[in-house]
């Protein structure tokens, strides 16, 4: 039995309960372009893979959407996430346009390990199909941002707030202000007290605060 995405439902007909959840993986294709990639490339840290189809479109994908589903479609945050991973790996694809996206179902085992097994049903063997070995690493940041206001002081006082005034563009009627109370560009500090209070659940007056 190998019925990607529907293993649970098919196995159920034979009275089997499987260590499988159905997930959706989105795939994407761009408009056709002249040869750019002659191999599959992947970016484990950013979760992105890409190849070029015979018709010229880049075919790519990334992480699964991450919830049980039988709806063969995904959601926008993953679309954006995959695009971000793609452009981190290949900045030149920015102007390429996405033509089409779709979602395919995968059988995911509980710990990501592949399963090939005999079953209690005579003659029934199980090889759930799907992308089992996907790495689930968190993406790294690219590059560094500077931090300002160094201070060498034997007594431990927070650095002072520094005023930076920059004006860019804009007419005075359409103006937004960023008021810098406790941090300057990259150097947070300050004199505010900011304290987390977590109530014991049973003593909390708002145990029913809506999520």
């Amino acid at each position, binding site marked *: 039995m190998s019925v990607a995405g529907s293993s649970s439902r098919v196995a159920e007909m034979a009275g089997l309960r499987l260590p499988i959840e159905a997930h959706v993986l989105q795939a994407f294709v761009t408009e056709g372009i002249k040869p750019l990639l002659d191999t599959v490339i992947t970016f484990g840290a950013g979760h992105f893979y890409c190849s070029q189809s015979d018709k010229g479109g880049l075919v790519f994908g990334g992480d699964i959407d991450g919830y049980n589903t039988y709806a063969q479609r995904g959601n926008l945050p993953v679309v954006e996430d995959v695009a971000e991973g793609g452009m981190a790996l290949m900045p030149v694809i920015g102007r390429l346009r996405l033509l089409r996206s779709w979602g395919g179902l995968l059988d995911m085992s509980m710990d990501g390990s592949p399963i090939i097994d005999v079953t209690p049903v005579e003659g029934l063997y199980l090889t759930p199909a799907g992308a089992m070995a996907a790495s689930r690493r968190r993406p790294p940041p690219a590059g560094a941002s500077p931090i300002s206001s160094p201070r060498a002081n034997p007594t431990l006082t927070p650095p002072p707030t520094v005023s930076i005034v920059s004006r860019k563009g804009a007419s005075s009627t359409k*103006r937004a202000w960023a008021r810098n109370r406790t941090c300057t560009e990259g150097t947070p500090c300050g004199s505010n007290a900011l*304290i987390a209070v977590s109530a014991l659940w049973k003593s909390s007056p708002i145990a029913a605060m809506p999520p």
Partner: protein
Amino acid sequence: MTAAVREAYGVDLPAKSVTARGKSVNFIGYGPGQWLVVSETLAHEALAEDLATRLKGLASVSDQSGGRAVLRVSGPRARDVLAKGLAVDLDPRAFPAGGAVTSTISHMGVQLWQEGEADSYDIAIFRSVSASFWRWLTASAAEYGYEVVTTS
């Protein structure tokens, strides 16, 4: 717990995601049974100790003063700037005066609350990402023009 807080700080502990301003402190509900207590005047250690003493057996207290930076974004286009990162409806019809929310902006966790003027928002961000946040904020505000104001 409500009584203990009212007695000490003169504020009704908010039962929703809103801010409640008391004597020198601001209680911001940010989740069921969780508040962020912000003070612009009290010393953080003393306040944390005072809270811990008064709420003993009712709640636990954890000083976060060193771990956050707080910015205020205000002005007629403040909501337009924030919308570029925040998937929360800040329109007065949906977000009450004094409303508070915990969410993300540009992949960074934020706690945001509205205080004072209608289009003025305070945003607490984690210390370590404050440089990245600042880059996002200036990039997002540039279209409208912006001014960085430092309070003393």
